[in-house]
C-alpha cells in the first residue's frame, strides 16, 4: 500500500505549534489580567482578590468545549499573596472527572492544602511545571504524565511565568487531556505519513501514527528516531517524520 505525503514534517510541526499557541493565547490572557491587577495594586494582592480574578478569567474558557482545557488557574510564588504564604487558585473544567467518580462534573475549584506544617503539603516550587518556567523565564509543557491529583488522567500541563516587574510572582497554566490532544493532532500527523511521531523534550511520545509506537513510551536511540527531529516552534516538542509516504 502506498500513500501520498500531503504535508511536510516541517509544515506539520507548524500545525502542532499552532495548536499549542491557541491554548497559550488563553493562558496569556489570564496572565495579562493577573499582571494588570497586580500592577494596579502596586504589587500587593490578597487571596480573595486573586481568587475572584482567576475564577472570572478561566471560567469562560473552561466552559468552552471547543478548547481542550480541563484545568486552569494561577499558582502564586511563595510570599506573593499577602495573606497566604502558599497559594493555588486552580479550577477544574466540566469535562474533568477528578475526584467525583461517575457523577456529572461541573466547573469547580481544586481543593488544596496550603499549610506547610501539614503532612499533605507539598512544596510546588520543586515541580517541573513550576521549576522550568522559573529557571528559563519562558513557557513550558510538562508531560505527558498521569496526573493523579488533579485530572486523574494522562495529561499535559502548559505553564507560563507571571511577572510583576522583574519578579516572577507565579505561573498561570492549563491542563489538557492527552486523549484530546491526540484527537486534534492525529489528522495532521497522518497527512505527513504512517510513521510520524510527536515527542516531548525528554523523548516521550505524545502521539504517533505508527501503530508500534505507544503514547507514553520513550524514543531512546537514534535508530528508533529514524530521522532528525524537527522542533515544533518554541513548544519544546519535536517531530520525527516518516519516510515520505512509504509503507
Amino acid at each position, binding site marked *: 500500500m502506498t500513500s501520498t505525503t500531503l504535508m511536510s514534517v516541517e509544515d506539520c510541526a507548524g500545525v502542532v505549534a499552532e495548536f499549542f499557541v491557541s491554548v497559550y493565547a488563553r493562558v496569556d490572557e489570564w496572565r495579562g489580567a493577573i499582571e494588570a491587577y497586580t500592577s494596579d495594586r502596586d504589587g500587593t494582592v490578597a487571596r480573595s482578590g486573586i481568587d475572584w480574578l482567576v475564577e472570572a478569567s478561566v471560567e469562560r474558557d473552561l466552559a468552552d468545549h471547543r478548547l481542550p482545557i480541563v484545568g486552569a488557574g494561577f499558582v502564586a510564588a511563595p510570599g506573593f499573596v499577602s495573606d497566604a504564604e502558599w497559594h493555588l487558585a486552580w479550577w477544574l473544567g466540566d469535562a474533568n472527572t477528578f475526584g467525583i467518580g461517575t457523577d456529572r462534573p461541573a466547573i469547580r475549584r481544586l481543593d488544596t492544602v496550603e499549610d506547610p506544617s501539614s503532612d499533605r503539603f507539598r512544596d*510546588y516550587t520543586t*515541580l517541573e511545571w513550576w521549576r522550568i518556567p522559573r529557571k528559563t523565564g519562558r513557557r513550558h509543557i510538562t508531560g505527558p*504524565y*498521569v496526573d493523579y*491529583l488533579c485530572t*486523574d488522567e494522562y495529561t499535559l500541563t502548559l505553564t507560563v511565568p507571571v511577572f510583576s516587574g522583574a519578579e516572577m510572582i507565579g505561573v498561570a497554566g492549563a491542563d489538557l487531556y492527552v486523549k484530546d490532544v491526540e484527537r486534534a493532532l492525529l489528522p495532521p500527523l497522518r497527512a505527513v505519513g504512517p510513521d510520524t511521531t510527536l515527542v516531548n523534550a525528554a523523548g516521550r511520545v505524545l502521539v504517533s501514527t505508527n501503530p508500534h509506537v505507544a503514547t507514553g513510551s*520513550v524514543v531512546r536511540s537514534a535508530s528508533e528516531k529514524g530521522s532528525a527531529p524537527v522542533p515544533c516552534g518554541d513548544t519544546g516538542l519535536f517531530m520525527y517524520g516518516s519516510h515520505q509516504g512509504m509503507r
Partner: protein
Amino acid sequence: MPKLTHARSLPVAAVFSPLEGAGRAEIVAKRLSDAIVLGVLPNGERLPSESALAKQLGVATVTAREALETLRRAGLVRTTRGRGGGSFVTYRAGAHDRMLDERLREISRVELRDAAVHYTAIAAMAAELATERATDDDVENLRSLVEGIDSSREDTARRGQASFSLEMAALSQSARLVHEELKLQAEIGALLWMFLREQDYRDRSAVTQRKIVSAMGALDHDLARRLTVRHIESAIEWLIDTKVGLDAEDAQ
C-alpha cells in the same frame, strides 16, 4: 496539575475517592481505619466534616456520621466541637496493631493469596512498564524518593512504600494502572505491608526499593519485575506465618 501535596497524598487521594456499589457505613469506616493504620492519615490529621466526607465518598451524610462514630468507638479519631473543632486522627500504635491482628485472623489464606495475586499483577506490570518508560530524570527522582524514606519507623516506612508503589505506577504512564494501584492500596495496603512492623523487614524493603531503582536505571525490566513480585511474595509469606502464630494463640 497542582501537586500541592506530599508524595503521600497519592494514597490520600485513594482514601477519599468515591465508594462504588452497596456498602456504606462499614466500608467507609474500614477504608478510613485502614488509612489511619497505614499512616496515610497521620496522627492529628483533621478529617473532612461529615457532609464533606459524604460528598467525597458519594454516600449519605448519615452514613458518614455512622462511620465516624465507629472510628470514635475504636479510639481512632476524636471529635471536638466549636471553633477549630472537627474529627482528628489519634494514633496509638498498640490499638492499630490489635486491629490489624484482628483483620489477619478473620481473612482466610485463600483470600489473602488471591489479593496478593491481584496486586502482583498490577505492581509487576507497573514495574516493567516503568522501567521501559522512565527517563533518566524520572529514575533520579525515584531514587531521591527512596533515599528520603525514614525506615527506622513503621508509619514512615509504610507511607514510603505506598508512595514508592504509586510512583512506579505513575511512571508506567498508564492512568488505569495508577487507578488500580490506588484502589488496591486503599483495599489491602494496610494488611499487605504489615511486615514493616519489624525493623528487619523495613531494612529489607529499603534494599529492595534501591535494587528496583538500580534495575530501572539499567533498563532491566525483567529484574525490576522479579524484584517487585518477590517483595510482595515475602510480605504475604510473613502474613501467613504470623497468621499461623495468631491461630495457635487462639487455639490455646
